[in-house]
């Protein structure tokens, strides 16, 4: 028992800083297939331990094992692999385009591709995601045209958002992708509101909320959990724990709670943790949670345990705050490699076909990029008009904006 003497202030620190040896020995990784799959109408009180475990399907040998396996056909898995590879290639090209000065800003998904790509395939048309800036796989896996994404990134004359939004803050109602704000956590409670509206309207569509580990500290996250719990809203509350919020390790937002999933327990919300680098596990858990929402069983909180391999954004340099080789030491591996190995193990894929697919995908992405660049990039070629700046503030332009537009000479 400590003495009641001078009080000491506590600030958590990550295990290792730059120059140190990466160490994830504190991250307990259960064996693939070891976590049971409860019925979707399970009493949440009986599965509280799932907030402290990790649901995994793919083992080290590339096999899909356990009760969460077996939901996807070979065809669907091959398509999933292609989606993740496309997102990775898209990111690499756009990151390079940012470095070339073709746009101001970019954010990539490296290491986290499985989360959004697999989740999308568990949804139905009409469902609505309220994403953060690192879920572009929701668009890629739903067939949203890459050239439209690039037009937005370049803020060019074909930008569907007319040059008004920061790059990668996409919006597509048609593809179930709510307009990204750039503010953090605001979308979480909005997703719950959308889900409440769907229930009020006796609809069958559900919502998916997205947030990162760091932003769970925002009050909107907690408001969302209260509202979701109170009104049993048909929503899946996703937390993508990629270990890093810019330079801040996840322990600063998590505090004394064992996991982010555990945040849901106090609200009586069933809360699961899943291997975010395991396409099959992400899809299986997403399906379970979505089915619960669809059957009026209320919200589910899902924590995806993953790792942000790249920088936070094109404006960030992680070598200043974490060991360079930390991502290599990440115990859950790489989502693309793991699904590739699984498909090779199943005999439906090979290294050669993978290499060939990489080349095909690169060619497709480059073709889209060429088309997008024919409409301009941020500082060259076609751009949205100055008139567009004044449009769309309101449904109908009020007199003071009309006067200002005249002053601007457009």
């Amino acid at each position, binding site marked *: 028992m400590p003495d009641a003497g001078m009080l000491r202030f506590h600030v958590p620190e990550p295990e290792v800083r730059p120059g140190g040896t990466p160490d994830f020995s504190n991250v307990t990784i259960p064996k693939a297939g070891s976590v049971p799959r409860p019925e979707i109408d399970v009493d949440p009180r009986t599965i509280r331990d799932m907030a402290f475990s990790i649901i995994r399907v793919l083992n080290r040998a590339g096999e899909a094992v356990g009760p969460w396996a077996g939901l996807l056909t070979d065809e669907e898995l091959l398509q999933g692999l292609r989606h993740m590879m496309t997102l990775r290639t898209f990111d690499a090209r756009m990151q390079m385009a940012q470095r070339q000065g073709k746009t101001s800003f970019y954010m990539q998904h490296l290491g986290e591709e499985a989360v959004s790509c697999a989740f999308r395939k568990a949804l139905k048309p009409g469902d609505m995601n*309220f994403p953060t800036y690192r879920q572009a796989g929701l668009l890629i896996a739903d067939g949203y045209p890459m050239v439209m994404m690039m037009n937005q990134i370049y803020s060019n004359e074909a930008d569907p958002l007319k040059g008004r939004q920061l790059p990668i803050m996409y919006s597509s109602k048609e593809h179930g992708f709510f307009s990204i*704000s750039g503010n953090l956590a605001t979308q979480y409670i909005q997703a719950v509101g959308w889900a409440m509206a769907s229930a009020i309207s006796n609809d069958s569509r559900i919502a998916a909320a997205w947030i990162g580990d760091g932003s769970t500290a925002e009050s909107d996250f907690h408001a969302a959990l209260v509202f979701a719990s109170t009104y049993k809203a048909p929503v899946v509350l996703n937390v993508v724990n990629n270990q890093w919020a810019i330079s801040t390790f996840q322990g600063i937002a998590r505090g004394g709670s064992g996991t982010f999933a555990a945040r849901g327990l106090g609200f009586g919300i069933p809360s699961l943790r899943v291997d975010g680098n395991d396409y099959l596990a992400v899809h299986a858990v997403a399906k379970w949670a979505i089915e619960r929402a669809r059957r009026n069983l209320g919200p589910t909180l899902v924590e995806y345990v993953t790792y942000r391999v790249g920088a936070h954004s094109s404006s960030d340099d992680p070598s200043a705050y974490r060991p360079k080789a930390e991502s290599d030491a990440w115990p859950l591996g790489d989502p693309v490699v793991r699904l590739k190995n699984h498909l090779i193990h199943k005999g439906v894929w090979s290294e050669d076909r993978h290499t060939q697919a990489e080349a095909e995908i690169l060619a497709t992405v480059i073709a889209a990029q060429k088309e997008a660049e024919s409409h301009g990039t941020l500082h060259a070629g076609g751009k949205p008009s100055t008139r567009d700046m004044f449009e769309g503030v309101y449904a109908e332009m009020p007199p003071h904006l009309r006067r200002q537009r005249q002053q601007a000479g457009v």
Partner: protein
Amino acid sequence: MIEAIRDAMDVSMGRDERVVVFGEDVGFFGGVFRCTQGLQAKYGKSRCFDAPISESGIVGAAIGMAAYGLKPCVEVQFADYVYPAYDQIVSEAARLRYRSNSDFTCPIVVRMPTGGGIFGGQTHSQSPEALFTHVSGLKTVVPSNPHDAKGLLIAAIEDPDPVIFLEPKRLYNGPFDGHHDRPVTPWSKHELGEVADGHYTIPLGKAAIRRQGSAVTVLAYGTMVYVAEAAAEETGIDAEIIDLRTLLPLDLDTIVASVKKTGRCVVVHEATLTSGFGAELVSLVQENCFYHLEAPVARVAGWDTPYPHAQEWEYFPGPARVGRALVETMEA
């Protein structure tokens, strides 16, 4: 005025099943000011319900509902409590149409009682309208009587964009003119207390001239309309009093026409002076009417202090202060 506000929501809910109403104490109880009384019983718990004490949650959920296709009209119990929702209002509701190029829109109304005069201290008396008029993408409305309150609220609910609807709580029961030591005439004995049945709207962005005059223009809204009327009567100055009704979009044409006629202008509001909406009004009058002005444009406002409790009537810009400004403007 409470009945008129309730009637506006009742009419809107009856006409359009997408209209939903919620907030703290709003459902079963009908709101602490009783503005939603009976709506849950009439329209059911899916259309009118109690919310957790989380203003950010209430407005955030409303934005999600609007994105879905509903038309939420939510209550923040006091304007003083809106700050936790400010991020949702400013960064989200106001910006959604613009940033998504109308892919998603946000037709919500955020109602809140505003202003002082009820010994509510600093947490039940503030007038934060300037925090909203400064935000592109919002409309801000302040009714001053039951007839307007109903027509403006129906118009706000039917508007395709987010509307901040500030209800001067000191006017809920009658046209309070700042004479706190005298009884207030109830709305039932005031011509603007007469509220037509059924559906009607008052367009957002149109001011009303409450008192015709030729000597000086008074720009006011909410409770200050009646304070200005009292000040004009008591000083005998032939003031023209304009009730702005909607602060944004602002009815500049009515303001400019009046100031060009009178050549003098006094701007009155209950909110604190510095960076208040009055500063915007004075700028616009100066820009548009400079060569017609015969005196400096005066401002009468709340002092730049937090809203005090015991000193309520020293803080509140009552008819004596407004009257003084009228006299000084006439003598300048």
